């Protein structure tokens, strides 16, 4: 969309105005995320920039909110809970989800649309409804308020993302490769691990990142299905925000932004690798 040399003044004005408008929208998208980073280093218990901070006086900054996060036993327990629940939930949704996505991408699947609609539904159903339903069910089977209850609930919520990302990579999968492997005597299990999995791995990994972040961010279902012993990081933040909002939340938020940057970088790397691999194949 480069500006041609023959553009009229009006076109020139619009060209730059449009860019400014887009800049403002990008600012709106990013500002709330960026602003909490400096605020989390506030030496005071305020949520605004103090005059010292604006003057870039080192006395206006401190790590005390981070110190609080790393020493407060509530926050530490919440972090541990999040870090034990999310990987297990991810493992379950990725293993079952990948299997199903492979099944779904076969050429003849009866009721494919209906099955797909059911598998994606946890993403669509309002969380409060899912949470209430799962509460009764997990109470009935004795899993309410247990680690495994929360893990299973989160695994269900993560499944749509795994299905979506893995089926997307399966679309580009060359079916003759499995046939070639079979013709050379590999069994279905060996074919899967040696041929199929390495090729769809980028999709599986990005699906698992989605599943991980879904569990790691989730508040509503864990409040219903879990008990105080499963209090996760977002749950702790939610309580903190609703009752008395303590600046430690900003430190936690900054750390979580760091985590999302890490995840995003991983995804971007995967995407590039995937594109490169596809670029090499004579498609």
């Amino acid at each position, binding site marked *: 969309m480069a500006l041609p040399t023959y553009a009229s003044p009006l076109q020139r004005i619009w060209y730059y105005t449009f860019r400014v408008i887009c800049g403002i929208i990008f600012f709106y998208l990013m500002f709330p995320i960026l602003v909490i980073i400096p605020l989390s280093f506030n030496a005071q218990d305020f949520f605004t920039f103090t005059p010292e901070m604006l003057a870039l006086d080192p006395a206006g900054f401190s790590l005390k909110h981070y110190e609080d996060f790393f020493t407060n036993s509530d926050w530490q327990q919440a972090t541990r809970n999040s870090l034990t629940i999310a990987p297990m939930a991810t493992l379950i949704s990725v293993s079952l989800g990948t299997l199903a996505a492979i099944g779904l991408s076969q050429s003849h699947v009866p009721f494919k649309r209906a099955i797909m609609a059911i598998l994606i539904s946890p993403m669509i*159903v309002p*969380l409060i409804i899912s949470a209430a339903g799962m509460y009764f069910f997990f109470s009935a089977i004795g899993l309410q308020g247990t680690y495994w209850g929360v893990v299973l609930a989160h695994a269900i919520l993560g499944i749509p993302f795994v299905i979506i990302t893995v089926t997307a990579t399966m679309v580009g999968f060359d079916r003759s490769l499995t046939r070639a492997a079979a013709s050379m005597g590999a069994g279905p299990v060996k074919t899967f691990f040696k041929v199929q999995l390495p090729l769809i791995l980028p999709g599986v990994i990005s699906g698992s990142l989605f599943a991980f972040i879904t569990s790691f961010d989730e508040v509503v279902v864990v409040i219903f299905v879990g008990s105080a012993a499963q209090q996760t990081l977002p749950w702790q933040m939610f309580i903190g925000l609703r009752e008395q909002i303590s600046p430690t939340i900003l430190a936690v938020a900054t750390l979580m*932004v760091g985590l999302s940057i890490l995840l995003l970088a991983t995804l971007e790397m995967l995407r590039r690798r995937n594109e490169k691999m596809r670029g090499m194949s004579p498609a």
Partner: protein
Amino acid sequence: MTTTDLEADAVRGGEPLKRSLARALRRQKMRALLLIAPLLIFIFVGFLMPIVSMLTRSVENNIVQDTLPQTVAALQDWDIDSEDLPPEAVFRAMAADLQIAIPDRTALQVARRMNFEAAGWTTMMRRALRAVPDWDLETDGPFRERFLDLHRDWGSLETWRALKAYSSEYTTGYYLAAVDRTMVSGHVEPLPDNQSLHLMLFWRTAWMSGLICFLALLLGYPVAFLLANIKERHANLLLILVLLPFWTSLLVRTSSWKVLLQDQGVVNQFLVWIGLVADDNRLTMINNKFGVIVAMTQILLPFMILPLYSVMKTIPPSYVRAAKSLGATDWTAFWRVYFPQSVPGIGAGAILVFIMAVGYYITPELVGGPSGMFISNRIAHQWYVSGNWGLVGALGTILLLAVLVLYWVYDKVVGIDNVKLG
């Protein structure tokens, strides 16, 4: 090759080709289904069934009948529109039922159930709890006077009308409550204005989600257009600015809006500093609708930009160039040629954002305050504060039906297998 050769070929292993092909196809289908089965069963048992069974609570109402069977039976003969109190037999049946129900601790559950519909039942029942166990059913009658002595509401027509109206095993009562109606008098009528909240909340959820969806489209379209029409290298860089918010925790984004929009927050601080707002007259931007709209638009914006971008990327630039070379102005070329081709992206993004917005709970809860509350918050409130699970089921069913209709539309417009993430 002659026909007979072909036939001979087809009957390999004594089996016609058609049949062996059909068998192979069947086996393939079975294999696909076997791969899907574990997950399908998992979702079915762990997700769909629990939701359906939770929603059936919205019509279940056996507590009254199970606890007070004789009373309910005796009330059968009493006309709900009658201006006279039920006959002595009903009061006697009530005493008999309560003598069983009180040791079983179910009497208070009935009171709790009836309290959802009309206030005062807990007090009435508590008075009865103390006295009724000591009554002798044979000699202590008439019971009507004895009940009236306990609490005067036992002698009011409303009490008995409500009990009769809500005594059936299955009730539409919770759905009526979900649309601000009641049948305590035996007939469906609107709830008084100070108790009517649900229709207003459904409406608010709908229009605010619509507005958020529209704003997201307004802001998302230019960005997606820019991304789709610059060099891919630059687009990938700018895309990070869309993807980072997408990947950032919902709670982080909501808390930063809470921090930004407070009275003492960064936005007010800035406005005071540039002199747009007086220090003692700071803007109230949080705990109202404004806060919810600003925060949710930002949170849902990536869900609009990404589908728009993926559609716009596929629009060949040659069409717009052709239009211009035929004499169209920039605007005509955009509006008549480019825009119609981007409509599928608008459909995908708009429905997705609307579906997500309608079910939002966290953001309205944290930045909405009472005036920015959504229907999900009301459902959570009914759950925690009132424990009215029937009403939770009824409100939930209505919300879910709305979402399912949108989901169906989404499937028709976009196709579920075309959902893309990032």
